[in-house]
């Protein structure tokens, strides 16, 4: 008799986590759609929300600032992801070589990972300052021109990318280090006996075996870069002249600076679409590479 009954115990254990995740993560995600199809602003928030259909989407797609923000997001994501991944992979591999003191070195490398976005933003803002920033001081004292790190609209976004590389690279180092630890040393020993050079070992053992870690890492840092706006908000507030308002920051400003909650929610939905598309593209590209290799 007992056997036919469904055992509810495992579900009970999961209930608290599922309750929180569904009510604070899944429900808001869906509610975003509702908000984006209604007129919700700082003026109407306490009144009835009128249904406006796809008007918010039409408005957004005819907003030149939205396209500007997409361009800035592209700069931000490409700059951040390529550097974080490149530097992260290089350092993870170097740390995995048979050298002394890896433990201490890894600890030193992890320190920036414990730093918050607020701290990163302020530290860089302090060094970038036009009047008293240390970077311009050093540049000028060796005879170079000062740079308007955060005041020049053409440069500001790249200055923030630089800060983001500093902030985000430790995660990639840590993540890929974990991946390298999972590769059996016997494989390398066998390859050395067969006479494979270092470079060959890297491309024919390390990279293929690390593939799963690389793809997960790339998806995570890409998605994070798309959605990330803490640094922009603190360092420049999106300025000068909109020049650092990436799409995610535009969403925040729409809602909390200009008071249009439904406008912000609409941008939020487009961000979700961007996240999903990019994840899909990464998975596709990497899977194709795998099947190519299998055919060979």
């Amino acid at each position, binding site marked *: 008799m007992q056997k036919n009954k469904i055992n509810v115990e495992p579900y009970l*254990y999961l209930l608290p986590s599922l309750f929180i995740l569904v009510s604070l*993560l899944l*429900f808001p995600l869906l509610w975003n759609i509702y908000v984006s199809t209604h007129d919700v602003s700082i003026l109407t*928030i306490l009144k009835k929300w009128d249904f406006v259909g796809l008007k918010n989407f039409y408005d957004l797609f005819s907003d030149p600032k939205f396209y500007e923000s997409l361009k800035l997001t592209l700069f931000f994501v490409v700059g951040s992801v390529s550097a974080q991944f490149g*530097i992260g992979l290089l350092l993870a591999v170097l740390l995995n070589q048979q*050298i002394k003191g890896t433990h201490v070195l890894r600890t030193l490398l992890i*320190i920036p990972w414990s730093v918050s976005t607020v*701290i*990163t933003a302020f530290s860089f803002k*302090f060094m970038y300052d036009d009047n008293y920033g240390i970077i311009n001081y050093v540049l000028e004292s060796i005879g170079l021109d000062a740079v308007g790190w955060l005041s020049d609209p053409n440069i500001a976004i790249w200055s923030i990318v630089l800060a983001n590389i500093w902030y985000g690279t430790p995660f990639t180092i840590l993540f890929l280090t974990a991946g390298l630890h999972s590769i059996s040393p016997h494989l390398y020993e066998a390859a050395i006996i067969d006479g494979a050079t270092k470079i060959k070992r890297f491309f024919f053992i390390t990279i293929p075996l690390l593939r799963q870690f690389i793809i997960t890492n790339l998806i995570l840092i890409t998605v994070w870069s798309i959605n990330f706006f803490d640094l922009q908000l603190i360092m420049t507030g999106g300025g000068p002249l909109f020049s650092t308002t990436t799409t995610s920051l535009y969403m925040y400003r729409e809602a909390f600076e200009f008071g249009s909650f439904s406008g912000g929610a609409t941008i939020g939905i487009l961000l979700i679409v961007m996240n999903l598309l990019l994840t899909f593209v990464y998975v596709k590209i990497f899977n194709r590479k795998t099947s190519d290799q299998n055919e060979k």
Partner: protein
Amino acid sequence: MKNSYRNNIKQVLSDKWLIYSIIFTYIFITLIPLVWVFSTSLKPNDLAISLPPEFLPSEPTIENYVFVITEPRLVQSLINSLLVSLGSTVLSVAISALGGYSFARFKFKGKNLLLSIILGFFMIPIVINIIPLYLMLSEIGLLNSIFSLIITFQILIIPLNIFLLKNYFETIPRELEEAALVDGCSRFGILRRIILPLSTPGLAIASVLAFRFSWNEFLLPIVLANRPDSLVFQLALYQFISIYRIEWGYLTAGINIALIPIVILMLLFQKQLVHGLTASSLKG
């Protein structure tokens, strides 16, 4: 033969120097901002932005630190941060331990599906939820409360910690539990009396991660709780911009105070963190 062996050694030695110099260059560049902020924090506030800059403070002082730990608003925010971080750490570890145990030890319908859904939740960017969360919490009157921060921080932490603890519990031999089951111990009793005491290293990693996420979080507080009585420390630092036309001496001291608990935790658990990530990814 002997010659090539010698060449090999030479090769290895020069490789090592190259490796060390790249790593040290990177570490040097990485630490510059933090060292500079630390050095500034030890200068009198008026001299923090003086030119030419003093790379090392000529007369180090702790007056900036004294300011931060005596300013009532900042002290309140430090207390709030501790309350929020400890509360959300305890809550998330408790909830994730229950969830992780369920996945580690029970067979039930929809197990794999539920596990991938929970992991999928980790992919949902919190940023996209800030507007609906703000509207929801304002509707039920929970904006600007420490409670709402503790609850909403859970979504940052739970998916990761369930996964981590599930993998940790799976490394504990089942025989111990079977003996207890025969003795008539309930499943919950087993979790409490056998599994949890044996999982302290796993619980420690989960707690460190939860504390780090909560202590450093900026986005949810700036949207959900920015009034003085529920202000967290990271947000109090951010508000230096508007309230005190950036007083860099005070701000850099605040930054260092914010760093202390996390850096200590990271240094203590560095090895376990890398190991924990490896172990969980191996099985995932």
